[in-house]
């Protein structure tokens, strides 16, 4: 729409073009079966997107979250089977903490690990996607109220494979008393550590998926015929698709909102609003899309479930919509009603 294209838009276009060409159902299956798509990852690295949030002086692109949002959403819209969101969060956190980025795909935890006085890390996270394919885990560590970003070699972790609806290779992670490869104070991290950033990323990815579902549904509505006409002529189908469109739009705005708030150091609030809203959009959007597609959308062969399963998964990761809504609601209830509007509008 706008005449000036930002670097973020350009990057997104490149990512979109690459993924539109490369992400086939076969490659999605291969990744769900456990292999890593090195070719796709390298192609993305070449575009610079994997280091988008790493400061320029640390060898990255030095973008903010708002700039990176279109590319991440584009990646979501193709269900890109790579740890792009995780690597972005990790690169951003390492960059802020001034830790050298080891490069390559990185995993993140949205929980907080404990650091003892010998600098040894302990803790566990029941779900870390992609960790089996990453050299390091980036996580928040805490010691006596102080917060640190820790870079932990995968080999220092105990991994147990876990199953998710997305079927992205994931593991339960336990670390017991290893010193991290790098550690640096993280004054920027709030009470929730990396959870807000990961939640923001998931909201953006879900928005991308909903964009795709909408495009698929419009196309199907125009081509699939029943009762002698395209099903998109039926008011019921039109309304399902209009509802999906509304959810896709809301999720898009939610994801972008979270990114903008992260950029201004208000990540927790942004994530709460965005994940609460986008999680709801994910549930409703997946429901509408499946209803539009009918039986064909339930087949393994059809692409739909590679999207809907990610929606069902990501709404639960990094805090569900209920978890964030509850947190937001408790903040609202902590102040008199007259404070609600100023809290929203400033």
């Amino acid at each position, binding site marked *: *729409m*706008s005449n000036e294209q930002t670097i973020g838009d350009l990057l*997104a*276009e490149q990512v*979109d073009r690459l993924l539109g060409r490369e992400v086939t159902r076969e490659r999605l299956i291969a990744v769900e079966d456990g292999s890593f798509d090195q070719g796709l990852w390298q192609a993305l690295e070449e575009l610079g997107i994997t280091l988008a949030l790493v400061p320029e002086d640390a060898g990255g692109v030095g973008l903010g979250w708002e700039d990176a949002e279109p590319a991440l959403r*584009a990646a979501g*819209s193709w269900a890109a089977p790579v740890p792009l969101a995780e690597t972005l969060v990790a690169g951003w956190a390492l960059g802020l903490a001034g830790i050298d980025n080891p490069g390559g795909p990185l995993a993140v935890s949205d929980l907080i690990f404990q650091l003892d006085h010998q600098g040894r890390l302990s803790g566990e996270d029941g779900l870390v996607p992609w960790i089996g394919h990453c050299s390091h885990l980036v996580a928040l560590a805490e010691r006596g109220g102080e917060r640190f970003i820790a870079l932990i070699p995968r080999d220092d972790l105990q991994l147990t494979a876990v199953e998710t609806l997305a079927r992205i290779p994931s593991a339960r992670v336990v670390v017991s008393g290893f010193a991290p490869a790098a550690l640096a104070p993280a004054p920027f991290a709030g009470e929730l550590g990396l959870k807000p950033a990961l939640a923001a990323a998931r909201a953006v990815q879900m928005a*991308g998926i909903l*964009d*795709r579902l*909408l*495009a698929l549904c*419009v196309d199907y*509505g*125009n081509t699939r015929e029943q009762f002698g006409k395209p099903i*998109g*002529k039926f*008011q019921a*189908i*039109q*309304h399902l*698709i*209009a*509802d999906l*469109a*509304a959810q*896709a*739009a*809301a999720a*898009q*705005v*939610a994801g*972008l*909102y979270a990114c*903008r708030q992260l950029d201004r150091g208000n990540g927790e609030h942004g994530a*709460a*609003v*965005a994940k*609460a*809203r986008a999680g*709801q959009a994910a549930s409703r959007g997946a429901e509408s899309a499946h209803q539009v597609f009918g039986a064909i959308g339930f087949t393994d062969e059809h692409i739909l479930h590679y999207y809907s399963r990610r929606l069902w998964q990501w709404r639960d990761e990094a805090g569900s919509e209920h978890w*964030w*809504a*509850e*947190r*937001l*609601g*408790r*903040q*609202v*209830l*902590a102040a*008199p*009603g*007259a404070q*609600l*509007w100023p809290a*929203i*509008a*400033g």
Partner: protein
Amino acid sequence: MTSPFSFKPLELPAALQPLRQRVRDFLAEAGRDWSGWKVGHSWTGFDRDFSRAVGAEGWIGMTWPKQYGGGERSHLERYVVVEEMLAVGAPLGAHWFGDRQSGPLLLRLGTEQQRQRFLPEIVKGEASFCIGLSEPNAGSDLAAIKSRANKVDGGWRLTGTKIWTTNGHLSDFMIGLFRTGGDGKVKHEGLSQFLIDMRSSGIDVRPIRDLTGEAHFNEIFFDDVFVPADMLVGVEGDGWNQATSELAFERSQPDRFMSCFPVLPPLIDEIRQGGDGDRLAARRLGATVADLVILREMSLSVLGQLAEGHAPAREAALVKDLGNSHEQQIPNLVRELSDCPATLARGNRLSELQGFLTQNVPSYSLRGGTREILKGIIAKGLGLR
């Protein structure tokens, strides 16, 4: 890129904070005695004195050129004023339609004479406008309009019936859509917009009581009403496009999702009186606030795009659709979290507001076009053939 939407963010600059504060101070004073029931009416509430006071502050026609009494202020400033008013349910009705719809129409398409005559009056809160679209047999199907304007010496003679005209009985002027030609085959051709003085002879306004017993909308009978030639607005025969683009424009404004907002603060206070609120209260309120924040972001984005000269019609339609759902859920939220009191306690702000809204929200998915029509527009806009 995949998304058919554009929601470029618009950030309200901190420089608007003093204006916001001024509006809040003004409203704290003006709204001191507003009851919950009154506040429930929000932008449909008609209070000429209030509108004059708003006008005196320079908050009507804020973005219009100074030559017509406007403030030449930004759309962002106007947005701040409007959302502050809506947040407290201020009675905007006496200037709302002029400020939101009829004034901008005249600015876009009116004659110089029309602008000079009407805009300054709107700005002062002196000229109230209503919108004459629906007819008894043209509700959702607006193009089925049958009211006619026949060309006569020096003007037009209007005959027919308009209905559901909000505040028609209190308004000074109407922008009305009448049939001026067309062979009736292509129904939306041959319609024209007129600026009608509501005191003209031949106009009979019959207020229609609503289910709460109040009369906000009206049936308006036109019996050979003379309208001077210079009161045609825009282009003869192009009224359908003119009117529907107005509708598209108004869809994304905060009145489409903030009508129920004023009930939330007293709800929160009531919950707090009983303790901190539990998981149920927190989750439901949190989800509602998240929804509202996102709607506001969407609305701001559309505002920014309009200001840049784009026409984000699809985006605006989605704001209205989502806004309707948001508003209509709020009385359910209040019911569940305030344990469903079975009486309407006059004098209790929460109770009055809830009583008003329970009875009125079902109409929110009708005004400005029904939900069904809107969803069809959205679907078509997405490329469903």
